[in-house]
């Protein structure tokens, strides 16, 4: 009796053990990107820009060509790569410390120029790699290594909403926030990523997908509690949805 395999690891993801902690959202997002690259038959034309952060070794896990950017500079590196090689599919993969702290300038200006790249932003409300310091996206009151009494917004400011911020700019083509804390949302996240990659293939310009993601280790919880925390604490402050879709705007103008 032959087994037909209905679901397996995508070809674009290598069959290697990752260094990610149990229940970490990075692995789920890797898989979604990998599935999209497989389905779009784009594995061999993809150039991945890996960040500094827990995603730093992403080039060991994706079976695509990749480059490692200095901390926060991934969208600048991606800009150069895409401008030099317009035939490639360029993905900038970044965490919240990378994209919204040290790399804020690069993030905003790449978006403001409307670079034809796809940015995948992993918002796990913490600096994961360095051991759990406060990130720009850390929730009010959240205890981290550098906010032992909880994030005090009167002292260090409020959590930054990246999608809303970038949505004030004229140039971005597509902006959406998704989550990977449960299966229905993972499936929606995949659609969003696919859309963002297709926009680039179609030469539409800058697409930004923010993914609410789990860091159980530095949140000090088990994996399921981490997933529930995304739903109960992060999602009310970081609402999911499409913030910008010039494709739909274009389509409605045609009608």
């Amino acid at each position, binding site marked *: 009796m032959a087994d*037909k395999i209905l*679901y*397996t690891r995508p070809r674009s993801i290598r*069959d290697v*053990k990752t260094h990610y902690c149990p229940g970490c959202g990075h692995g789920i997002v890797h898989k979604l990107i990998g599935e999209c690259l497989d389905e779009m038959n784009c594995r061999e034309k993809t150039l991945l820009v890996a960040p500094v952060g827990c995603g730093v070794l992403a080039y060991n896990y994706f079976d695509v060509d990749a480059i490692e950017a200095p901390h926060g500079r991934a969208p600048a590196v991606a800009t150069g790569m895409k401008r030099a090689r317009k035939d490639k599919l360029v993905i900038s993969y970044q965490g919240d410390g990378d994209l919204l702290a040290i790399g804020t300038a690069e993030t905003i200006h790449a978006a403001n120029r409307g670079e034809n790249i796809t940015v995948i932003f992993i918002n796990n409300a913490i600096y994961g790699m360095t051991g759990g310091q406060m990130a720009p996206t850390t929730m009010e009151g959240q205890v981290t290594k550098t906010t032992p009494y909880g994030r005090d917004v009167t002292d260090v400011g409020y959590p930054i909403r990246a999608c809303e911020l970038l949505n004030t700019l004229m140039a971005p083509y597509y902006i959406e926030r998704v989550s990977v804390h449960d*299966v229905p949302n993972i499936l929606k996240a995949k659609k969003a990523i696919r859309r963002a990659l297709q926009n680039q293939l179609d030469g539409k310009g800058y697409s930004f997908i923010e993914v609410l993601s789990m860091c159980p280790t530095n949140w000090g919880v088990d994996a399921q509690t981490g997933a529930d925390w995304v739903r109960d604490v992060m999602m009310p402050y970081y609402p999911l949805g499409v913030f910008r879709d010039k494709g739909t705007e274009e389509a409605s103008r045609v009608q």
Partner: protein
Amino acid sequence: MKKPLIAIEKCKGCGLCIGACPKKILELSSAFNKQGVNYPVCKDESSCIGCKFCAVICPDCVIEIAETDGEV
């Protein structure tokens, strides 16, 4: 018949698959794998509906979903 194929040595024991299964047929093993963690086992393959939820949520590509021709 559909069923999960669980590559137990790749499992990190996070348990997300167990919470995701709508049929509640996955449970953590009492045995450990070589990484030293408990892994999911399917206690009732005949109840599996092949929804893939366990496999989709697994961050480590541990689970495949297979369809057999039914002569179990």
